[in-house]
Every structure is written in C-alpha cells, then in structure tokens.
C-alpha cells in the first residue's frame, strides 16, 4: 500500500474507480511477453492489478466473471511513440499542442499540461484497444522537443501514468535543420546543452536509492520535479545558449534519471547516437525511427539500446531512409535488438490503433521469401510489452502477468488481423466505455430514411 501511495505521488496514477475482482475466463490468451497465445486462458484482476493469468487459473469466489469463450484476450495496446492526447484536429493550430515553434523554451517543455484526456483521438483509440501511449512533444525551434509522458486512455480526468518520463530530441535530418543546417550543428548544440546541464548537476538532488517497497528511482525517476527547479540559484557561466529552465530540465537526462529518446533514421546517425554514451555514460538512450537500423543492427544490439521503430516503412522517403525496408524490424530483432513499434511521423496524434495492422504485417513477412518478419507472439509484444520495456515500465504495463496494471482487452478475434475488434477494454481494472464521436455518427447516419424530424434529433 505504501507502494501504491507512492505511485500516486510519483506517477500521478489513475487508480481504479472501484476496487473489484474481475475474472476474464476461457479465452485465447496472449500475454504480450513474446509467447504464443494459449487456449482456455483466464485473467484475474483485483484492485486494478492483475493477480493471476494463464490456463487453469482458479477463479476467486468474489470475482465478477466475464466469459471470453471464442474471444482473444491480450494486454492493452501501448502506443510506442505518439502524440496522442496533444491534438484535437491537427490542422487547427489552436487545438494542436504537439509543438511550440514560438516558445522561448525547448527541453523544459512538458507535455503534461497539454494532454487532454477527453480528446476525441483518445476515445477513438480506446475503442480500438489502445490503453496506454508513450507521448512525445514535437520539436519547435530547437533539437530538444521537451519532456514526454506515458498516458492511459481511460475515460477519466487522470490520464498521466508517468510524467516527464523522457526527453525527446531530433538528431537526424530534422535536427540538422533546426540546429542551423547541419548534423554537426545539431551535435554541437546537443553537447553544449548537456554541458550546461552538467554545470547545474551538482546542485540537483541525489538519486534516491531503491529497495524496500520503494520503486527503483532509476525505473521510476523520482522526479522531484526538475521543473520546480531546486537549482534555481545555481551559478552558471556567462557563455550559455540555453535558458536556465531548459538547462535544468536536461539535468535528469544527463544523470540517467530520465530516458532520452532520440529520433534518427540513417545508419551513420544511429552510430553517432550510440557513441554519445562514451561521452555521457549515464544517458539512458532509446532510438526512435531507425529505418536503416538493420544495416548496423549488431552494433545496436551490442550497445543494448532499445529501438522504437516504424514497422513497415519501406520507401526512401528521405535521403536518411535510403535503406528503408519492411524487413528492418525483423532483422534487428533477429540479432537481438529490443524492438518496439511506434507511429513515428505517421498520424501519431490520432492513429495509434494502426500499430495493430503494422504488427500483422510483420507476421505476414515471415512468408515472403527473402524477407524478415517476426512471430505472432513477438509482433504482439512489439505493440504491448516492448514499448513499455523500452522506457523501463515493463513491470507496470504492456503485459499480462501478476502485478501488472489491469490493462486487458477482449477481442472478437485475432487482434493482429485488422478485421477483429476490441469488445471489452479494461484499464487499471476498470471497464471502459467504447463509444465515441465516430460511433455516435455511425448510429445517427446508418439509416438515411427521411423521418419526421431532421438528423439532429437522432441521438
């Protein structure tokens, strides 16, 4: 309970509306850990957490039983990289909080105040079995976009699972552009920024040790909110480029208390990023994109840096993606890279649900001669547990195992085949409503027969 209380404080967790025990029984169960589905699977959720899962599980006497015979049961889909909740309509600037091109700040920007749990995109994705998402800001005038969060898609006003979980930076073509026109400029800016942070580091609070009931501070960074800066009065050199606020926000990145998600696509860029660990050994790097990752996959694997990739982009859409291929993910996985799927520059504000389709396509590649796909179990993991693990939250979300949050979806059929639909969605053990703007429109217009009153009265 101490842990739960801490979670509230540290993670601003959404606790279930009511503590109850639910048993989802007799379905085709896939736990999201990379294994294949099993028949006759049961999941028991109590007080918002999974307490047992598998075949032959005893159903507690007090459980509310959901019969999932003939259905599939999986963990909720985790958006591997998205802008979910930051935007209502992309082209309507006033509703678009994904980037702040006119802000004087960059690294200090935090997506939390921008997340709208009532954004229609959240409900649309919840309808399709997406229960959590990694949400990053987009870059504005700097290579640093700011601090991203992990959210849930529950129908409540507490969307934040983990605030300020990571910093997001662009170091490929896009970063080169914002930094002044070259990758060299981007790296100079990056190094300078971390050095400015290092001048402030000694004033930052020490990392709290793990142990006991307390969460590991490195996994759940104790973010004595760096934005409420404890280093407010620190001395700095005169020679500074960053605002004090931005430099302060980079302290936890430098210390490895906050993940650093880096978007790069080109093979040479990937190697440059891996090389940053020599200079800044505490960095907790995650590669985002990595379209050419397969060409340097062994080196990514050796570095132990996880990748959140686009699944099926196979076009030389830019000069940094000349080697793009649908086999990228399969090939990286084959040599031991930990790969998750995200929607990178791909309708990332609204269409996280497409990750399901992408995962299915990776399975299909197994049957294309010469191509590299992944197994069904691994494909599901890539849109559930792998993104969670990439940012150190695999113990909390993304899979069905005792102790995890109760994010469970019951599907009409195989969730990686696009023809299936989510029939029941639980987040933190709470059954979620699945209607949204789209389903209401569908019901209003399914029959166009003229009635006594206009359509506006059909609801």
């Amino acid at each position, binding site marked *: 309970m101490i842990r739960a209380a801490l979670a509230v404080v540290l993670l601003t967790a959404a606790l279930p509306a009511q503590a109850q025990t639910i048993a989802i029984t007799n379905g085709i169960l896939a736990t999201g850990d990379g294994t294949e589905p099993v028949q006759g699977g049961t999941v028991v959720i109590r007080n918002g957490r999974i307490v047992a899962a598998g075949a032959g599980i005893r159903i507690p006497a007090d459980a509310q039983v959901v019969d999932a015979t003939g259905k599939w049961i999986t963990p909720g889909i985790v958006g591997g990289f998205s802008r979910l909740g930051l935007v*209502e*309509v*992309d*082209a*309507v600037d006033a509703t678009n909080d994904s980037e702040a091109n006119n802000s004087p700040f960059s690294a200090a920007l935090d997506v939390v105040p921008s997340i709208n749990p009532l954004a*229609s*995109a959240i409900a*649309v994705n919840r309808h399709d079995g997406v229960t959590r998402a990694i949400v990053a800001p987009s870059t504005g005038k700097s290579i640093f976009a700011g601090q991203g969060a992990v959210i849930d898609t529950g129908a409540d006003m507490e969307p934040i699972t983990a605030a300020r979980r990571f910093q997001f930076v662009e170091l490929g073509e896009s970063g080169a552009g914002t930094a002044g026109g070259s990758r060299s400029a981007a790296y100079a800016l990056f190094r300078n920024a971390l050095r400015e942070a290092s001048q402030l580091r000694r004033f930052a609070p020490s990392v709290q040790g793990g142990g006991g009931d307390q969460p590991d501070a490195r996994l759940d960074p104790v973010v004595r909110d760096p934005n409420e800066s404890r280093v407010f009065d620190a001395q700095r050199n005169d020679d500074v480029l960053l605002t004090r606020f931005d430099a302060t926000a980079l302290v936890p990145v430098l210390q490895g208390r906050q993940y650093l998600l880096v978007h790069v696509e080109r*093979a040479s860029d990937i190697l440059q990023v891996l090389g940053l660990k020599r200079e800044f050994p505490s960095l907790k790097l995650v590669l985002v994109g990595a379209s*050419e990752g397969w*060409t340097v996959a062994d080196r990514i694997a050796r570095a132990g840096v996880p990748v959140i990739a686009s699944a*099926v*982009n*196979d*076009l*030389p*859409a*830019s*000069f940094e*993606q*000349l*080697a*793009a*291929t*649908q*086999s990228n993910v399969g090939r990286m996985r084959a040599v031991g890279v930990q790969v998750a799927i995200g929607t990178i520059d791909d*309708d990332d*504000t*609204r*269409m996280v*649900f*497409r990750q399901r*389709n992408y995962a*299915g*396509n990776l*399975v*299909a*590649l197994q*049957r*294309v*001669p*010469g*191509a590299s796909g992944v197994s069904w179990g691994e494909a599901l993991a890539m849109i559930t547990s792998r993104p969670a693990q990439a940012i150190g939250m695999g113990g909390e979300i993304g899979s069905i195992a005792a102790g995890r949050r109760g994010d469970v979806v019951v599907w*009409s059929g195989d969730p*990686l*085949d*696009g*023809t*299936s*639909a989510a029939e029941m969605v639980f987040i933190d053990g709470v059954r979620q409503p699945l209607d949204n*703007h*789209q*389903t209401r*429109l*569908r019901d209003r*217009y*399914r029959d*166009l027969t003229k009635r006594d009153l206009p*359509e506006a009265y059909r609801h």
Partner: protein
Amino acid sequence: MRTGRLAGAALALLALSGCASLAPKPKAAPPIKVNLNPYPSTYQRYAGVPTVIRGATVFDGEGQQINNGTIVFADGAIVGVGGADLPVPAGAQVIDGTGKYVTPGIIDVHSHLGNYPSPGVPAHSDGNESTSPARPEVWAEHSVWPQDPGFSRALINGGVTTFQVLPGSANLFGGRSVTLKNVPARTAQGMKFPGAPYGLKMACGENPKRNYGGKGQMPQTRMGNIAYARGVWLKAQAYKRKWDRYERNGGEMPERDIAMDTLRGVLAKQIIIHNHCYRADEMAQMIDMAKEFGYRIGTFHHAVESYKVADILAKEGICSAMWSDWYGFKMESYDGIKENIPFVHNAGACAIVHSDDPNGIQRLNQEAAKALADGIRAGVPNLSEPIAWTWLSRNPAYALGILDKTGTLKAGKMADVVLWNGNPFSHYSRPERVWIDGALMYDANDPKRRPVSDFELGQPGEGDVK
C-alpha cells in the same frame, strides 16, 4: 505542319475575297482538326506465356467468388474464368493455386506516385501548380518521374496494377490526371494506360481557400471557392460554344487555350471530374454547380462524409473514393467514421477504397478488409469478401472509364491478375505473383522479378525485399 495548313487556308480565303462581287458568297475554310492527344501512350504489353491458375479461390471483381476456381489467360488477355472443369489450353503454364487466392489487380484512383515521388525533397514536389486557383492547363503526366521507387512497392506489396496520378488539391482546378499501368518504364508515356480517358482534378473546401486566402487572394472562403469556379466554368462554356461552332462551320480558327481545352473536354463529357471534397454539404453544392454548367462529377475523392449523403450520391451516380479509417487531421475530416465505405455501398452508391498515400497504396486490400469487417459489425446486409473486392478493382475501373478493359476477371479483358498467398482480406496475406497484361511483373519466389528503379541502384539496400 498544322501551321502550314493554316497558312494555306488563310491564303485561299484571301484569294476568294478578291473575286468579283457577283461571285457566290465565299465558303468558310474547313475546320482544322486539333490534335487532342499530343502526348500519346507508348505502352506496349510485355511478353507473357499462356497461363492457367487452378485450385485457387477467385474473387472475380464483379462480386462473385469461385471456390476451386480456374483462370486462363494468354496473349495479354483473360481467356476464361470458371470452376475446376474449365477447359485448359494445351501447352499453357499451369500454376497450382491450392490454398491461394486470385483477384483482379488492385486499381488506385488516387495516387501521387510520380509527382510526389520518393525521396520527398522539394526538388521532387511536382504535384501542385499552386500559382493560380484555376490551373486546368497543367497535366499530371508532365510531372510524373518514372523512376519513383514507390511504383514497385505498390506492385509487389499492394498488387496494384493500375493507378491514377492526380495533381494536388491546392487549386480549385488542379489540372489533368493520368492513368498509368504499373510497369517500370523510361518515360511517363511508356506507362500510360492506352485509351484511358483523362480526368480533371477539382477541389473544394479547406485546401484552396487556405492556399490562396493565406496569400490574400481569392478564394479565401468556401463561398469564394464556388464563386471563382463558377466564373471559370462560364468562360469554359463560351470557349466551348466558339470551338463547337468552328468545328461545325469552319472559318477562322478561334484562339486556343489549353486550360479551356481541358474544361471543354469536361463539358463534352470526354474528361472525367475527380473532385477532392470531404464534407457532405459541399458535395451537394458541387453537384449543383455541375448541373448549372452541364457537366458530370465522376467521383468525390477523400469523401469522408459520403455516408451522410449516400442516397444523393446513389441517385446522381457519383462514386466515392474513401479511406477506411483516416479522420481528424483537419476540420473537414473530423466526422470520419469507419463504416463510411460499407454505408455508401449499402445505399447503392459506388464505393471505392483509395490511398492518396505511397504507403497506403501498398495495403489497400487491408483497408478494404477493415471496412468490410466494420460494415458487417454495423449490420450492413449482404456484405461479403467478393462484394468488398468490387471496391478495389471494379468500381475504381468504372470511375476511371476503363472498366471495359480491366477491373474484373472477364474474358477479353486485360490480364491484370494477382495471385495472393492467402486470403487477401487477411493481414497475413501477400501478393505472390502479379501479372500485368498477362506478363509476370512480380514473383515473390524470383528475385529477378523485383523491379529496382534507377534511383535505387548502388544505394544502400538496392534490390532488397522492400
């Protein structure tokens, strides 16, 4: 050549007018025939062998499914489609299709492959001539880069055998479209679908008003969109009257205007309107404008709200080209629903799955699968996989005016055929072989049948499975 003839005619006219007043009234010079096809297709089908696929499940594109079906094609054309008892010509290559599926090649009515090619650098941005709200004089084929790597991805992953390349939607009148066969070629003419009619891209809604309103120009509003377009149509009507009279009576040739040539072709029902239009209310207004000026709209593209006016579209005989689930990227796509395609179909209107996207074009079968499943779940009656395939080949062929040549597996039509390694409505299935005009253009088992564009040669990943 034409100038020479013209000069001769003018001289003759002068000579006549010099005659005595008692001479009969001078006859007008006969009209000169204008070449309306100055950039003709040079496409020629590639060599194929007489081929039989047996034992496959066939979706014929007309709404029928044949289990344990047989398809025969030779000399570029489909010879016959039927059951296991269909006679097979001697000497034909026989492919065992057991456990596999055969369909007509997919046709995408909305692509920018070639005019927004990969890599998407500004030097390649050739889709929008956004220098005036009305640019009917531009032709998409003059922007098409035949080396776009996107063509091969659409072929080998998507089973796409034909597609229409459209200008973008910055303009009310964006220019002429071109329909291409998905074969690698050195020139755009080498891909041009022989005999396909031209289309004209029109746009309503947000894009034109944003593009020009942002520059302080008309149109800045939706009312400006319509007002501007009406003005252009008035000019087109006058131009058409002038040229019709000339072609009937001869005399002095009116001045040619290549912008107006296109619009005259629309008014003469020779060029098909492809109208980018999202919102239901705007579609109704575009229909009224078409009636005002006497032209027909062939297809509304990106028709996100067709489900709201599907009855009107059915009555007017207008197709809707739609996505399965795109929504929310701008206001006019805010009311997108996942049942749009099946609802339009259910109203008896022509439903098409389109991509407008170099990635989406590789998975149109999956988009149709999602729409089909959503439609069935919503209770739309009489939906089935063979019916849903009409959204991918028959209806787009109809929209492009090429249904007599392709789009269904019917004897005599072009042998544009895909053999899938499983049910193409499953995300787990992929094209195994693709024939265009009976020529095997892709074979998953043959690395040599995997096109590599000039751009990709010597680059990282050349010739890889894409």
